């Protein structure tokens, strides 16, 4: 099965769980989800995050996944899942179908991010986005001093095989959200270890020190309702 950049594939996104537990960025996201809510996970893989949320927070979860074998795994876990490409699948949901729409570590691969996020904010009350922070100091070091395109655990690709077509910095993303007229409900920056399973929240100089940015977005209208 062909995998598009938007769909994400096994090679481009680190596994959600390892022997040590859930990927650190996902455990942060899981903390943000209110019990009993309806959650859409884009590029849900084998459904580990949704399955965790279903067991721990009694949520009602739907995933979108491209790969048939992963779709079958989701069904095995009792999840609802739609096989398809995320950019086209998200178009068909009714307004405010979900409480949360989760887009983890995929935004940097999306061709039309503004359009996608706009759709997600229509079908969900909250959109949770995580992405690798391109301006982490190690990347700056490689670019500035070594004169090389950055290579790291978070950005493990060479220029000729990277699926990442967007270079996102935490500062730039914040500005983008403002420009689009959306609202940042929550935001955190994390620094993860080599395997991405452990990490800590970065409060000081996140744009320099964080490996990932995680944002919860809403529209201004959603904000006014509260």
């Amino acid at each position, binding site marked *: 099965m062909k995998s598009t950049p938007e769909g994400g594939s096994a090679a481009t996104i680190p596994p959600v769980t390892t022997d040590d537990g859930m990927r650190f960025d996902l455990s942060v996201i899981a903390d943000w989800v209110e019990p009993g809510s*309806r959650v859409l996970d884009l590029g849900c893989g084998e459904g580990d995050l949704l399955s965790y949320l279903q067991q721990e927070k009694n949520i009602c979860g*739907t995933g979108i996944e491209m790969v048939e074998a992963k779709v079958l795994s*989701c*069904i095995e876990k009792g999840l*609802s899942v739609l*096989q398809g490409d995320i950019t086209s699948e998200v178009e068909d949901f*009714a307004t405010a179908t979900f409480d949360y729409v989760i887009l983890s570590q995929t935004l940097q691969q999306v061709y039309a991010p503004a359009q996608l996020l706009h759709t997600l904010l229509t079908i969900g009350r909250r959109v949770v986005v995580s992405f690798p922070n391109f301006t982490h100091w190690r990347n700056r070091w490689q670019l500035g001093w070594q004169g090389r395109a950055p290579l790291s655990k978070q950005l493990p690709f060479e220029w000729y095989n990277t699926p990442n077509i967007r270079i996102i910095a935490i500062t730039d993303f914040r500005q983008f959200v403002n420009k689009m007229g959306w609202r940042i409900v929550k*935001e955190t920056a994390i620094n993860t270890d080599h395997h991405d399973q452990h990490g800590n929240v970065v409060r000081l100089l996140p744009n320099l020190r964080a490996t990932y940015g995680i944002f919860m977005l809403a529209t201004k209208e959603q904000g006014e309702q509260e």
Partner: protein
Amino acid sequence: MSEYVSRDVDDVSIGIVEKKFYTFAEAPAAPLVLESGAELGPVTVAYETYGQLSPRRDNAVLVLHALTGDCHAAGYYSKADPKPGWWENMVGPGKGIDTDRYFVICSSILGSCGGTTGPGSTSPVTGKPYALDFPVVTVGDMVEVQHRLLKHLGIDRLLAVVGGSLGGMQALEWSLRYPAQVDGVIALATTMRHSALAIAFNEVSRQAIMADPNWKHGNYYGGPKPATGLAVARMIGHVTYLSDEALRRKFGRRLQGKEDFSFEFDIDFQVESYLRHQGSKFVERFDANSFLYVTKASDYFDLGRRDDATSAVEAFAPARSRFLVVSFTSDWLYPTYQSRELVRALKKNRADVSFCEIKADSGHDAFLITNRRLSALVGNFLASTRDGTRLPAAPPEEEEDEVDS
């Protein structure tokens, strides 16, 4: 459907089963009123059941057969019976539809020839077979008859309705006609409405039957059957259930029992021999008039026009079940785009829906063929429906979020 019927690959079976009958609308004053407005009675339903109904009556699964199937979904009629039911690979102990866990019901559809009332049944008015006096029936009428049967069996709630092709249409009809009584819907290789292509193939098939001089406007009972017409109809249909890939893999251009062309109009190619064989086998087990009625019902089916709906999205508004929609990559009769249209209509209605496109090269009939991925998918969906791991869809609730950025 009988082309694929064979012993289970693991030789597991429900064992000996029995075909039963239920007759209703016997009193002339209380006929079954059909969607067309026509009245029919008495109506006999042929059915089989497998497994045990739980004391809470909450484990019933209704299996819905396709165009030329019948109520004999699984098991054997006797120890000497060479062939099991048509979905032996899916229905049985430990299988996708696990008869150790579920009470499985399958009945022959109205208008067909599997023991349920159809054009070959005796008319109470004339004492002769109905033939074309039998009213044209719809998928909705088929479901109505199934509903009456379940009422008779004391089942007022179904854990799931499961069907492929025309069976999938019945499953979808169930979800809209009796939304509160169906927890789960499994719709395999199906569509909300026939494309012009599908109607076209059905019409060619019907014309083949009606052009047979033995057909005699349907009044052939007691005389020679329109066997040639029905066989050709089956050959046409059968091709639409296969795929380019499957035909290449099975036959290619190989010749049948010869080294060179015969330069006559006898059988040259293996695929010709295969189709003729399928055609003649089909004539032994199926009634030509029934073929006309069931293909017509499938052509009429259109969820986008159900009741007063103006679109499929509108039609699915009453749906309350959770859905599993499955298409197959090589199905060109009801291609994946048609399943996606169905999924789209469900999503627009906030229905709980899963969709999977299974990679298979055997065409439309892929749902009938032993496939462990499909069996696992069906089994897991039934299990999670039963376990009720899902919350019912609720309207959005407003809640406070704190900004901690």
